[in-house]
């Protein structure tokens, strides 16, 4: 057996060297006006050899290794337990989420400003990921241009405040609605396309919207973006040091406390938190409604679902529109948090990151998506030395997840009814 594998193993090891040696081991460097080739450090070469050796050994003893792996006791302690009963599981999940929310409500008052700001970003990603989860996780439509709707929300608020002085609270529903309508208009023609074609077309739409935002200089300021986007107000109270809009009062003067920049950051965080909770609740509701069932039915088996009388277009369109709506929601909050937006915040990579969150979280599961959003946003902040490797790890994680655990870290388990066989 081992003998049979030797040839293949040697081949794999050689391929490993071929694909890593020129790119890793020979570096193109600019010396003055010339490009020269320099060797990498010795450790790089050692690493390449070690990698090749590992591949060789693994491939040689592949069968026995895999057998051992299968026999080995599962590391996962939960796996031996019986799967939790459905009702308990659902209850547990909602308790966990409630716990997280209560914790999140009081947490910002005890930690630093930087953490609160980061948490606001996490919440924005949670909203985005929950929205995309409807499209990708539940309805099974791969949308690679999701960032376009996020941009529509952000730009709606920026433009409304720039030209019509509309406040955050007015812009929030308008932005979300506009994003939803954009989703519907774009979705209508393309949703009859099959999965992978749909992915490419949505990617194209995402790029087109970004290019248009970038080129329409007279309206959107083009690459200069739009600045001076107002912060949200609390009943007409502003959180800045100075009042910017006439007629408003400032928060710290009204309450007679000293000005602190933290008020604004915490307030924004709380708004984002409330909106994220609203997003989660609404989507949760949708999931239990007939339309939510229809999404999943269509994802699982389109032909069967259609033969049962589900309108393919209507079901897909609803998922697409709702996803876009929440992206618009998140976009408005993002614009308000940044105070300045430009097309470079809405590139394809952003779509890919949101998609990675949904995939890592286990497509369909809300708790999973929330945890993944937290992990994906915070881990690079914690390990800043590794931030260069962030995207590399993202890519690898996406592949590995698909290979080993396509259902994600916390897969969704549907509340289903078990039919007892009639004796």
């Amino acid at each position: 057996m081992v003998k049979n594998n030797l040839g293949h193993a040697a081949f794999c090891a050689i391929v490993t060297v071929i694909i890593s040696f020129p790119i890793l081991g020979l570096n193109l460097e600019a010396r003055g006006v010339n490009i020269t080739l320099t060797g990498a450090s010795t450790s790089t070469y050692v690493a390449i050899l070690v990698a090749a050796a590992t591949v060789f050994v693994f491939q040689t003893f592949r069968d026995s290794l895999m057998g051992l792996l299968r026999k080995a006791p599962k590391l996962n302690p939960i796996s031996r337990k019986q799967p939790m009963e459905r009702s308990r599981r659902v209850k547990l999940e909602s308790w966990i989420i409630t716990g997280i929310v209560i914790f999140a409500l009081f947490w910002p008052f005890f930690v630093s400003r930087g953490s609160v700001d980061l948490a606001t970003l996490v919440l924005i990603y949670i909203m985005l990921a929950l929205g995309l989860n409807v499209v990708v996780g539940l309805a099974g439509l791969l949308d690679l241009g999701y960032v376009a709707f996020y941009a529509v929300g952000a730009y709606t608020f920026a433009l409304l405040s720039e030209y019509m002085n509309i406040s955050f609270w007015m812009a929030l529903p308008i932005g979300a609605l506009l994003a939803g309508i954009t989703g519907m208009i774009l979705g209508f023609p393309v949703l009859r396309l099959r999965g992978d074609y749909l992915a490419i077309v949505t990617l194209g739409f995402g790029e087109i919207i970004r290019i248009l935002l970038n080129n329409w200089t007279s309206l959107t300021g083009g690459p200069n973006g739009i600045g001076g986007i107002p912060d949200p107000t609390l009943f007409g109270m502003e959180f800045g040091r100075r009042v910017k809009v006439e007629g408003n009062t400032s928060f710290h003067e009204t309450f007679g406390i000293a000005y602190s920049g933290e008020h604004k950051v915490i307030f924004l965080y709380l708004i984002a938190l409330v909106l994220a909770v609203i997003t989660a609740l609404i989507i949760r509701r949708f999931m239990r409604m007939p339309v939510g069932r229809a999404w999943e039915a269509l994802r699982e088996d389109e032909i069967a679902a259609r033969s049962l009388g589900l309108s393919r277009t209507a079901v897909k369109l609803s998922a697409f529109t709702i996803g876009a709506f929440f992206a618009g929601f998140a976009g408005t909050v993002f614009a308000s948090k940044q105070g300045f937006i430009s097309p470079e915040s809405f590139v394809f990579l952003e779509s890919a990151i949101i998609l990675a969150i949904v995939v890592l979280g286990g497509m369909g599961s809300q708790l999973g998506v929330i945890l993944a959003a937290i992990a994906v946003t915070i881990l690079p902040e914690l390990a800043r030395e590794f931030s260069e490797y962030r995207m590399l790890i993202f890519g690898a994680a996406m592949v590995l997840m698909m290979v080993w655990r396509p259902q994600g870290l916390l897969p969704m388990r549907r509340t289903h009814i078990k039919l007892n066989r009639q004796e």
Partner: protein
Amino acid sequence: MTTSLKKLVTAIGASVALMGAGHAAAEIQIGIAGPVTGPVAQYGDMQFSGALMAIDRINEQGGVLGEKLVPVEYDDVCDPKQAVTVANRLVNDGVRYVVGHLCSSSTQPASDIYEDEGILMITPASTSPEVTARGYELIFRTIGLDSMQGPVAANYLADQNPERVAIVHDKQQYGEGIATAVRDTLKDKGVEIAMFEGVTAGDKDFSSLITKLKQADVEYVYFGGYHPELGLILRQARQANLDATFMGPEGVGNNDINTIAGDASEGLLVTLPPSFDEKEENQELVKAFEAKNEDPSGPFVLTSYAAVQLIAEGIEAADSKDPFDVAEALRSGTFETPIGTVEYDEAGDMKSFEFVVYEWHSDGSKTPAK
């Protein structure tokens, strides 16, 4: 057991608190915020090497008001979103002076936070006029504006009496801003502008654009943007026998353009801040950079150096560590820095920042253009 643990925790807590206190008493933190990673990290390197050098040298001379300067580094990847996160972390860490950010699109959202939080910011690289146009008190820069650099280029072009000029830009804040400034000045001077067009940053094929330039029969082409695109345009223009002189802003003036364009970079016109590293009074500083095996010739090295120096001298002039007092001192004083004599106007821009037109050569050197 529990009591000893408690004691231990208390002891550690107390010592940490004391350390923190000692920290605050004898040090002034200088935040350096710019791209350490990402596509424009090479400009970030210039910023960090200049600012760190300035901090070292000021500390060697005894620091500021008897206190040492301590650098705190932040990476914003030149991404507006990260820039806001970085700005908030800076506030958090109690930093009150910032040298940064680099890209205008990062500087703009970050400066909103700095102004609100009473942090003094000096950007060594952001040239967008927007940055200082909002009436902020604490935002300064040690570099000229697009609206200063554009006219220098346009005046030079107009003096050559060209029949037709084409203007191309890369549809980014920096490139389009400068290209617009050039166009407006040229229009005022009555020069015919045959074309004003954008290209996509990151694109590689410019053959259609070049054919169009050929058809328009232009004598000069102004390109607003960075070296990767202009390098390719130069080279592909040479291949297609386009006979025109190209000109670009300081974003194209580095050796990378030679590695891309090769011989085609000969004769390119570039507006640059005067090469501070070639000034006589800076030679000692240049040696210090070379001793550390760093290159002082990048466009943002000495502007970053000057930014740190201005903060230090501002603190001394104000005899106060309050950023508002320092800002006041910067506006009222005159400072000698490696980038020349600095005086600030109300907006926080230098009253004069010179740009010079250079002719670029294929060996990477440059000479003042005639």
